């Protein structure tokens, strides 16, 4: 969806302000909500792209007005509610009012830690041939899906060059809908800054995205 999360190229946000000696968490709740997100993801209640989408659909003013981990809280609570894993009454009460429902991979326990400390692979076998090869010029499709996608707005309709091929990977646009992995070839596609930002742009800048084959068409 063309949401405010898709920020590449937007103006007006001001300078990047780095905090010297920044702590990992600025308050204890940040660590807890990060951990709950990771743990619930590991139970198989949803996948990574569903989790990303839960934050993308936050209303624009909420998305822009909330700290990073607050967005994680809001997204997590909504996913739990949507799946009937918790009830709004329980959030109000601050306690469980009914027993839990079964989870695909069961309760997340200490012994499951290794599963989340290493990222699971996203590459998958495929029977299809890669449509593009390294060095090919490709155009990103001018598409505006309503759902989750990983094709940022700022590259759509532009011509770039295939630089790397990563094999077939889980396709975010589909896996976010119903968990179907629908593996698609994944490419690093590099664009000249001027192709994206016009003739006045810095000629020394190149930008790449990692693009799934359905995002691309031959030139």
């Amino acid at each position: 969806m063309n949401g405010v999360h898709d920020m590449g190229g937007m103006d007006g946000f001001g300078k990047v302000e780095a905090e010297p000696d920044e702590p990992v968490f600025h308050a204890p709740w940040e660590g807890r909500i990060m951990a709950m997100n990771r743990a619930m993801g590991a139970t198989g209640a949803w996948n990574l792209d569903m989790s990303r989408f839960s934050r993308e659909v936050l209303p624009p003013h909420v998305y822009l007005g909330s700290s990073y981990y607050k967005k994680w809280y809001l997204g997590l609570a909504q996913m739990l509610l949507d799946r009937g894993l918790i009830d709004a009454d329980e959030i109000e009460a601050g306690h469980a009012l009914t027993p839990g429902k079964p989870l695909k991979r069961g309760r997340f326990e200490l012994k499951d830690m290794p599963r989340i400390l290493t990222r699971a692979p996203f590459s998958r076998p495929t029977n299809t041939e890669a449509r593009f090869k390294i060095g090919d010029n490709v155009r990103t499709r001018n598409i505006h899906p309503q759902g989750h996608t990983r094709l940022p707005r700022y590259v759509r309709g532009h011509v770039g060059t295939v630089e790397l091929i990563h094999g077939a990977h889980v396709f975010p646009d589909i896996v976010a809908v119903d968990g179907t992995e629908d593996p698609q070839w994944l490419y690093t596609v590099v664009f000249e800054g001027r192709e994206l930002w016009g003739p006045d742009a810095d000629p020394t800048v190149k930008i790449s995205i990692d693009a799934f084959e359905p995002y691309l068409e031959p030139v």
Partner: protein
Amino acid sequence: MAGHDREHDHSHGHSHDHDHGSELSEMQVRVRALETILTEKGYVEPAALDAIVEAYETKIGPHIGAQVVAKAWSDPQFKNALLADATKAIATLGLESRVGDHLIAVENTPTRHNMVVCTLCSCYPWEVLGLPPVWYKASPYRARAVKDPRGVLSDFGVTLPNDTEIRVWDSTAETRFLVLPMRPEGTEGWSEDDLAAIVTRDSMIGTGIPEARNS
């Protein structure tokens, strides 16, 4: 940045004091309530949550990436392996955390500088750098890194020659990028540990340049 938590929350029904301090405790209360519910429902073991927080607070951080960079600066064979397949190369180091698939190391040279961003969310190589800093996840960096990378670099006090190519890697899939910065002059003969000590987190994102200093 200090202001990042100071958002106001009007999305819930309770009346509350809008003072910034109590806004924080408001989130503390809401998150604690959610943890209680998840625990009581048997979805998560609290000790496992403790362990996740502890891992990212104390074990997994940029010191891991710094070791990798220092090794690459010291051992040309390792550097070649790292640039060919970072996941595989790092596995040979026997580090505590195993690095997941699809990690790609990109090398800075005198003619090319690499910078990593995630414009869509906050994708970041957690296993070698830990959790991303607030600025990496915040709007100014995500918006400007792909359009005005030199301007972003100047926010970090970094100025590159006008003819240096700047390559921005937008992390839009499950590939993850680690910048291999240039080894600074004046570090000849340094041990890997001494080298690792000058490899900053920002230099592995591409918003900083390591400098030789007495470690």
